[in-house]
């Protein structure tokens, strides 16, 4: 499995497993670790006498994590086969080109500033979402025509919900 950590891309594979004792290969390094999941998202890993209490905070998508140990914090992204396939499909559509505005958090649609068919410029504010007493403006990353407005004012949206599509 390919995993990115703070810009480094590593290959992580499981070699063998015997109860909590797991042998892993990270790039060319072999690690025999004693690993326990002690709670949801909390792992205790002992490697060569060093104890790591690792906290995994899932990001908005299942394959993005913030990983905390006692002394460090990392941004981690999983790139497995399944994900790579999904990624390629997404590339084929429009996500990575900034044409779909997704809600990065749950919130409430306060104001929609454009309608279907409108011509918009990159940098123009399209929609305002409010969550926890804070309003966030979402701007067009590309210029184009509004193809679809998927939400209505006053509506409550989940994280990663499609809000507006530009064509």
């Amino acid at each position, binding site marked *: *499995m390919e*995993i990115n*950590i*703070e810009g*480094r891309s*590593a290959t*992580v594979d*499981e070699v063998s*497993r015997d*109860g909590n004792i*797991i042998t*892993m290969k*990270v790039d060319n*390094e072999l*690690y025999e*670790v004693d*690993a*326990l*999941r*002690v709670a*949801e*998202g*909390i*792992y205790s*890993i002992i*490697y060569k006498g060093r104890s*790591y209490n*690792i*906290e*995994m*905070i*899932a*990001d908005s998508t*299942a*394959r993005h*994590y*913030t*990983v*905390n*140990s*006692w*002394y*460090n*914090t*990392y*941004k*981690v992204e*999983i790139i*497995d086969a*399944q994900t790579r396939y999904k990624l390629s499909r997404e590339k084929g559509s429009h996500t990575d080109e900034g044409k779909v505005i997704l809600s*990065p*958090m*749950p*919130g*409430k649609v306060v104001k929609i500033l454009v309608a279907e068919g409108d011509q918009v410029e990159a940098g123009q504010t399209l929609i305002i979402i409010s*969550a*926890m*007493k*804070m309003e966030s403006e979402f701007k067009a990353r590309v210029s184009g025509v509004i193809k679809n407005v998927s939400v209505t004012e006053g509506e*409550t949206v989940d994280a990663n919900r499609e809000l507006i599509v530009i064509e």
Partner: protein
Amino acid sequence: MIRKVLVANRGEIAVRIMRSCREMGIRTVAVYSEADRASMHVRYADQAYCIGPAPSVESYLNIDNIIEAAKASNADAIHPGYGFLSENAEFSDRCDREGIIFIGPNSHAIRMMGDKITARKTMMAAGVPVVPGTVDKIHDEEEALKIIAEIGVPVMIKATAGGGGKGMRLVKHADDIISSLRMAQSEARNAFGDDSVYIEKYIQSPHHIEFQILADKLGNTIHLFERECSVQRRHQKVIEETPSPLLTEAIRNEMGQHAVAAAKAAGYYGAGTIEFIVDDNLNYYFLEMNTRLQVEHPITERVVGIDLVKEMIGIANGDPLPYKQGDLKQNGHAIECRIYAEDPDNNFMPSPGTIQHITEPLGLGVRHDGYVYEGYTIPIHYDPMISKLIVWAKTRQEAINRMSRALHEYKITGVKTSIRFLARIMETPDFVSGNYNTHFIEKNLDFLMQEPECDGQCEDIALIAAYLDYTRKLAKVSTNGTTQKAVSRWKDVR
């Protein structure tokens, strides 16, 4: 004699108020919006009434519904907490009319301190220093020159109708007064169609320092020393500490006396806070008065050893203050960190969601005031504050070390939080040396956002953990049997 208190609030402050009520043998009534049925304050109270839909205006700001709940539950007093209706004079009046004790000041004091110009004039009359300058617009260039000659440069020229930095000019040298004035007026006219401007002393390196006061209904007023609140992000306090590393004993006493005078001038009773702006030379000016309990009140409680909520209830009962100024002293050092559900790596975007796991920091010198629990979903409708972490130690340095330790113990999964950002502040040289003002976060942003150094091994361990958690998730959602069986057979501890 108060026997039952309705807490017109939610979250950590509602629970915190109920704790003190329990210790006093006072029954508690929670009110909650439809989004808050599972919230801790509802579970903590003896009674609970739903007061409307999720949006605050329909529930926590709905005076009629709250009064109705107070009557249905036979509550004889209401504690408003902070935010929501806590500084609403109309609500205080309404409680009076309904024969319910409002645990806070009378509406007259709320109104007087709520109006910026009245508050300023009251303070000037009471001899409390205010930021030098004019309140009303200046009439001509002569007046401007005269005023600036009095208060000295640097000054800010601000549009009366102003906002967003428009029509605002900083004057550093006396030579620039006339040109700056004209430019500000012209900009103001263009932006607001009104060229009125006023002049205010510009405070370089401003510190935000506030004094806690307590006043009873019999005319006794004391202060409980200061809180240093200069660590702010976008005018939101992030970290508070007491004593302030800036103040000297002499200035502290002087400011304390002014704080007491300020409260007396407002005819104030209850718990309140006098906010000052202080420059590097320890010149201090009254900024405003908060006529309520503050978010950061626990650091004062810890250092002075007094439960402020209990004192508020005693005052509301009409009891005399049990302490005189001379009885109080600052013992050791306390720091508070506010833990928010937000993503510091993504412009501090709010991060509501469901708490998957929480490990709360414990041990010597640690107080944790929270309200979330495992499985609780933080609603999108309210403030993103999850909890307040308060530490105490004999010295400031030990308190910083203890806060670092506590922040590292504090683990929440399911939502993103400011915990790591706060931990980084504890390591920032300007914070450690106590040499900071309200520009602290801005000034140290590079350091605060910098990724810590790390050897390859601990990075690899993080990769292994990510692998384990991700494959476990895949195995859980897998329904087509293609996922390798070994994963699901992996023995969990729980």
